[in-house]
């Protein structure tokens, strides 16, 4: 089986989020980056395990980004992906990213393409669907469990209040959610092998973005908790109505 895993780079979960003065760009000074956890823990680990199940399989990590992402890509290789491709461009929007990934995948005949269910920075959940559309492949989102037998995959998806089970024929695109696999720490052997695995850097294809980010805004700081005594129901109603404006 030929498997492609799309991985992206996100700020570390503990990073301080701030923007430039005009609020048009994320302020990356001093921010440590990690591989997007959904891509790493769920998509990649599951892909690697599937590859082991089907001898002769390969797992290719594909990333749209600049050279400062190489450390993250190497981690993918340390987690036992076979090779990697970096498309040398800034991943400005989901559409641009999906287009680049699609153009890479088009000629490669992948049997299976993984993304994470979302990135933990923009939380868009867009790339997988767009990528599938570009390639004219089926797309299964939020997969929390997946088995493959022959050319058919059986996938469990988390849906509101329950689980949906779908069957889909290879090839297809799947976005991985929690449950697909367990986080794995790269071992020394993996790390040592990673440095000798191929990491190809390829140029992007020309593509005019259809959208652009005009402004970022931080969520409003949470205001403190107000305690209302149990015998002051009228006061509670008044607060909810005229201050919180929720009723």
């Amino acid at each position: 089986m030929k498997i492609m895993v799309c991985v992206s780079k996100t700020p570390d979960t503990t990073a301080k989020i701030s923007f430039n003065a005009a609020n048009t760009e994320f302020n990356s000074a001093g921010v440590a980056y990690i591989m997007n956890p959904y891509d790493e823990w769920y998509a990649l680990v599951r892909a690697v395990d599937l590859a082991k199940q089907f001898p002769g399989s390969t797992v290719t990590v594909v990333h749209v980004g600049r050279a400062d992402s190489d450390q993250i890509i190497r981690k993918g290789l340390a987690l036992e992906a076979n090779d990697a491709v970096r498309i040398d461009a800034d991943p400005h929007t989901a559409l641009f990213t999906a287009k680049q990934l699609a153009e890479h995948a088009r000629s490669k005949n992948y049997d299976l393409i993984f993304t994470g269910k979302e990135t933990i920075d923009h939380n868009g959940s867009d790339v997988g669907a767009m990528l599938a559309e570009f390639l004219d492949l089926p797309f299964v989102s939020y997969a929390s469990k997946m088995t493959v037998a022959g050319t058919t995959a059986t996938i469990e998806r988390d849906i509101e209040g329950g689980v949906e089970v779908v069957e889909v024929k290879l090839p297809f695109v799947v976005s991985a959610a929690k449950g697909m696999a367990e986080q794995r720490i790269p071992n020394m052997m993996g790390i040592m092998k990673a440095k000798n695995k191929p990491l190809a850097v390829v140029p992007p294809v020309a593509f005019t973005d259809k959208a652009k980010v005009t402004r970022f805004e931080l969520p409003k700081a949470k205001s403190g908790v107000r305690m209302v005594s149990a015998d002051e129901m009228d006061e509670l109603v008044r607060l909810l109505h005229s201050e919180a404006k929720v009723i």
Partner: protein
Amino acid sequence: MSEVTNHSVLKGGAFIIQDSVAAETFIPEQLTEEQLMVKQTVQDFVRNEIDPIRNDLEKQKGNHNVALLEKLGELGLMGTHIPEEYGGSGMDTNTNTLICDALGPGGGFTVSFAVQTGIGMLPILYYGNEAQKQQYLPALVAGTLKACYCLTEPGSGSDALAAKTRADLTADGKHYVLNGQKMWISSAAFADIYIVFAKIGGTKFTGFIVPRGADGLTLGAEEDKLGIKSSPTRQVFFENVHVPVENVLGEIGKGHLIAFNVLNIGRFKLGALCLGGSKVVADSAVKHAVERQQFKQPIANFGAIQFKLAEMAIRNFAAESSQYRVSQLIQDRIAVLRAKGKSYADATLDAAEEYAIECSILKVAGSEALDYVVDENVQVHGGLGYSEEYGAARAYRDSRINRIYEGTNEINRLLTVDMLLKKAMKGQLDIVTPAWAVQKELTSMPSMTRPTGLYGEEKAAMKDFKKIILMVAGGAVKMQMDGKINLEKEQEILMNVADMMIESFNMESTLLRVEKLRLMEKEVSQEVYEAILKVVFADGTARMHKFATDAISSFAEGDLLKTFLMGVKRFTKYPAVNVKNMRRQIAGAMIERKAYCF
């Protein structure tokens, strides 16, 4: 990953007579992408595997230590210092330093790790015969086999060679019969093999490998300790324990080589473990100081608190600079020895012996920096620091052992000076010529011009500090040769000299690192690093002044004392700096980032 970077190689102990060059000094900011990935793996291990079970570990609930060792084995983290033929990956020294550094925050579990990978494994790697290495090392590396190290006895701790445990050959010549008692044995509770030191016939100090479950081997009750409660500690009793002669480790009567040489590496590693723990504790102090509000503002606003945060950073930074500097020196030495045909094991052992002085310095400096940091961390946390519900109290208790084992800090200080003088006596290090030069300089007119150039004050101060050490040590040795004092009985003076060596080494390592950082891209501005440098030198100068004055007034009198005191004055000219503002700047960098950021 191995690379020789040092061209004008600094030999062990030579830092007191030779200058180093920043460009040739290794600093942690130079770690490679691959090494940073190793660091990440270890940090993930601490976060995913240790953090969630800290309370259970502390109460020794379940068999967590054993399970954690096995997981580390699976990750390949227990064999990075073991050659491939014995199941390891033979990585370079810097990577191994980094692993200890990153595992440092692992609390008492790090003791189990250090026992397994250090005193448990290394005696076999360095002194075992081929069959023993094949039999034990791969399983120890994998974590399926656990080891412990039995040297200390109720009657012999620092004076380890005074052990009473004995071994006697049976009539058929097939076994040694061990009798005696060991004390404070970490990991004895779960170890599968015991590295035991006993005297054959009551005289020949020798190492043995004793399997768990051997008849007559029993354990005492779990010790109730001040800290590192998650690391089990037991007494081990030997009553007519029969050990096959094949289990003798190394040469008969040469057990002291095993016991002492393994310690050089143990001390080096302990320095790195302390350092790693200390950085994380400092981080928690910063975070708490930013969060905690009193008098309607974060306590991080208060100068008294900023002082503590800055001081934590300064001490960590100095210890870290020294740790990685020595790491590279050892790594380079190993590369040279390997190029000459030595095995990985022999090269490592010899390199650590070459830098035994520096290893002792790192152990003392690292454990004392950590003790400062955990203590002030409790203070920054106030009442919460005193509560067992939060990490500060545990870190405070856990820290204390580091000044006691792997040779107490007193023993290590004594060794630092003792080894230096021995190297001089053996002609390995010429300290006599430069010491004479200093004597001469004392009678000449001092120069009045201040130094210029990049970090000119610091570089000049460094040269002066070396002169003070030579002056004091040289003066004391001369008194000894004249029969006026017996230095062995003047430990206070030796402690002063050791303190000056430790202080100087840390100052120089800090200087080299800050100078090198100047040309590197980094997150925190160079100005902040220079503030660290200046406070290290300002405080260091005052301490050098005191140590030197204490020492010379302890052995010199009259005109000689006067000359020496003038020398101290002359060699501690580093200008006063606004340490208050500099500490504020250092603390400010961390407060802004809500993290330890150096």
